[in-house]
C-alpha cells in the first residue's frame, strides 16, 4: 500500500519501511525552534532533564521575534534568558535583533529547514515549512525541551487530507485567498490532527512565497502540518540556500487519504475572514462596507517579498486614508533590504505608511500596533480571535496584502481593483 508524503517522512525518520495513520513513532528531528515567548519555558524545563548540551548546536534554532526589539522590561528579561542560553550552549543559529527576522520567514530563507525534514517548533506556525515538503509542526515548550535534549520526539502518524486546486486564478487572488477559502469551507477544526496536503495544477504554478502562506495557515484549520510536494520551484528555492542535505518525497499514487477536496479556483475572489475566527470567510465584494482604523501588512503569513511587491503595486502613487494607520513589516532583514533596493519602502513611505523592523509584535497584540477598544484592523496576518490585536472589543479582518493595501487607501475594506 502506498504512503503519503507525511507518512514517508515520518517512516524515514523513525527507521521504518512503512508507517500508517494512528501508529505512534519516535522520530528523529532535524531542526527544532523556539522564540522569546516559548523558549524561556523550554529552557527552564530543559535544565531539569539532566543533560548538559543540546543534541546539536547547529540545529537548535532560537529566534527572539515576538516582543523584540524588547517592548518592556519583562520582555527584555525573557529575551535575555534565550540569549544567555544560546551563548552558553554555543548555538550557531541564534538570531539577534538587527540580524533576525520573523522565524517562519527566516528559517527557510537561511536554508535551515529543507524538503524531507522533520521540524518541530514551539510556535504553532511552524507548519509553514510544509511548503518545502517538510514535516513541520508546532509543539509546546516542554516538547521543545525534550527534543532539544534528545534530538527526537514522538508523533502519532496523522491521517492525510488532500486538497486539489484547479482552474484559472482570478486577478489579485493568491495563496492567502486559497487558504482562507479552504478554512472557510472546512472550518477551524476541519483538519484537526490531520496532515493537509495541498496539490493540483494551481499549486504547481504558485510561487514559493504563495506556498509558504498556504502552509502557514494549516494550523488555522486544526492541521498538524500543511504539505506541498516539492518540485522545480522548490528546488530553485533551496539550491544554494540549504545548509543541510535534503530529500524530496512524493505521495504515492495509491496513498490513502481521509478525505479529498477539489476546488475550482476560477470561482474564488479575494477572501476576507471576518471576526472572530479565520473560518468566517467572505468574498471581498461582500466586505466593502467595513470601515477600518488600521491596516497591517506583514507577518509570517504575508511578510515576504512577493507580498510587499503586491502591496506596493496598490499603494504606488496613492495615499493612506487620513483616518487609517498603515503599518508594514518585512519578514526578515534580507526581505527589508530587497524592499529598499526595489524602491518598495519608498512607495510605502510616500503613501504615508509606517515601515518597521521585522517583528511578530502587532499580529499577536504584543506591541507595535495595538488596537484600542472598538477599533478595527484589516491584517495580512493569520488570526482574528477576540482581542488578538489588542483590546478584547477590537476587531481583526484577515486578507491578502493587496486587499489590505487597497483598504488602507480607501479607509474601508476594498478590492484592489477599486484602487489600481
Amino acid at each position, binding site marked *: 500500500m502506498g504512503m503519503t508524503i507525511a507518512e514517508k517522512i515520518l517512516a524515514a525518520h523513525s527507521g521504518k519501511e512503512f508507517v500508517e495513520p494512528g501508529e*505512534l513513532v519516535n522520530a528523529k528531528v532535524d531542526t527544532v525552534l523556539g522564540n522569546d*515567548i*516559548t523558549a*524561556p*519555558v523550554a529552557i*527552564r*524545563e530543559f535544565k*531539569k*532533564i*539532566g*543533560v548538559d548540551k543540546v543534541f546539536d548546536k547547529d540545529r537548535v534554532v532560537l529566534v527572539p521575534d*515576538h*516582543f523584540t526589539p524588547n*517592548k*518592556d522590561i*519583562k*520582555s527584555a528579561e*525573557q529575551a535575555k534568558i534565550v540569549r544567555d542560553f544560546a551563548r552558553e550552549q554555543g548555538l550557531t543559529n541564534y538570531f539577534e535583533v538587527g540580524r533576525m527576522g520573523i522565524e517562519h520567514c527566516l528559517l527557510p530563507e537561511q536554508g535551515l529547514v529543507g524538503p524531507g525534514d522533520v521540524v518541530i*517548533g*514551539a*510556535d*504553532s506556525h*511552524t507548519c509553514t515549512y510544509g511548503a518545502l515538503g517538510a514535516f513541520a509542526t*508546532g*509543539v*509546546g*515548550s*516542554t*516538547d521543545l*525541551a*525534550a527534543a532539544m*535534549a*534528545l534530538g527526537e520526539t*514522538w508523533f*502519532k502518524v496523522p491521517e492525510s487530507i488532500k486538497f486539489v486546486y484547479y482552474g484559472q486564478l482570478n486577478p489579485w487572488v493568491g495563496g492567502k485567498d486559497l487558504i482562507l477559502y479552504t478554512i472557510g469551507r472546512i472550518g*477551524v*477544526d476541519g483538519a*484537526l*490532527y490531520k496532515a493537509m496536503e495541498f496539490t493540483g495544477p494551481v499549486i504547481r504554478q504558485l510561487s514559493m512565497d504563495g506556498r509558504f502562506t498556504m502552509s502557514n495557515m494549516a*494550523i488555522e484549520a*486544526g492541521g*498538524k502540518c500543511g504539505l506541498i510536494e516539492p518540485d522545480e520551484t522548490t528546488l530553485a528555492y533551496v539550491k544554494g540556500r540549504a545548509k543541510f542535505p535534503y530529500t524530496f518525497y512524493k505521495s504515492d499514487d495509491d496513498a490513502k487519504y481521509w478525505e479529498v477536496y477539489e476546488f475550482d479556483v476560477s470561482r474564488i475572489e479575494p477572501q476576507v475572514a471576518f471576526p472572530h*475566527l479565520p473560518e468566517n470567510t467572505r468574498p471581498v465584494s461582500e466586505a466593502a462596507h467595513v470601515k477600518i482604523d488600521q491596516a497591517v501588512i506583514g507577518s509570517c503569513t504575508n511578510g515576504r517579498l512577493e507580498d510587499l511587491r503586491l502591496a506596493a503595486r496598490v499603494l504606488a502613487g496613492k495615499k493612506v486614508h487620513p483616518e487609517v494607520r498603515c503599518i508594514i513589516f518585512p519578514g526578515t532583514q534580507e526581505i527589508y533590504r530587497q524592499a529598499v533596493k526595489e524602491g518598495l519602502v519608498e512607495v510605502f513611505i510616500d503613501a504615508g505608511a509606517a515601515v518597521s523592523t521585522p517583528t511578530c509584535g502587532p499580529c*499577536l*497584540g*504584543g506591541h507595535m500596533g495595538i488596537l484600542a477598544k472598538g477599533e478595527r484592523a484589516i491584517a495580512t496576518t493569520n*488570526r482574528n*480571535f*477576540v*482581542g*488578538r490585536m489588542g483590546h*478584547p472589543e477590537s476587531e481583526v479582518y484577515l486578507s491578502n496584502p493587496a486587499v489590505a493595501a487597497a483598504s488602507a487607501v480607501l479607509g474601508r475594506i476594498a478590492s484592489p481593483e477599486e484602487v489600481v
Partner: protein
Amino acid sequence: MQLSGAAWKFGSDIDTDLIIPARYLNTSDPAELAKHCMEDADPEFYSKINAGDVIVAGKNFGCGSSREHAPIAIKAAGISCVIAKSFARIFYRNAFNIGLPIFECPEAAEKIQPGDRLEIDAGSGLIKNLTRDESYRAAPVPEFMQQIIAAGGLINYVAKRVKKNG
C-alpha cells in the same frame, strides 16, 4: 486521582488568546499567568473560581497558538481539569506534558450545566455529575499518554530515560 469541583461552561473554539492573552506572555511565571486565565472570555473568571473547579467546553478547545502558558495558566489558577467535546492538537499535547488532566467527552460537554458539581476519576475517565445524578465516560487516554502521566509529566519521563541510558 479523584478530581472534584463546580463546572464553568464555555463555548466551542476557545482559543489560546482567550485562555491567556498574548499581552501577558512577557512572563512565564505561573502565578502571574493564572491571574489572567480566561480573562478575555470572562474578566472575572479568576476571582470567581474555587480550587478544583472544572472548565467544560465545546469542540476544538485550545485552538490557536502553541503557548504552553495556556494550560499552565489554567492549572495554576486552580482548575483541576478540562472537559471538552474535542481539543486542538497542540493544547492536547501540552496539557499532558505539564500535567493538566483533560477529558474528551462530547456527552459530558453537552449535558453539564454551569455550576453543576462534578466528580471525576482521572484514571478511568468516569465523570459523575452530582447535581444531575448522571455519569459520563470520557474517551480513554492513549497508553503512551498514561505513561507520561504516570511518570509525572514529559520532563520526568525524559529525565528517567536519560538517566537509564547513562
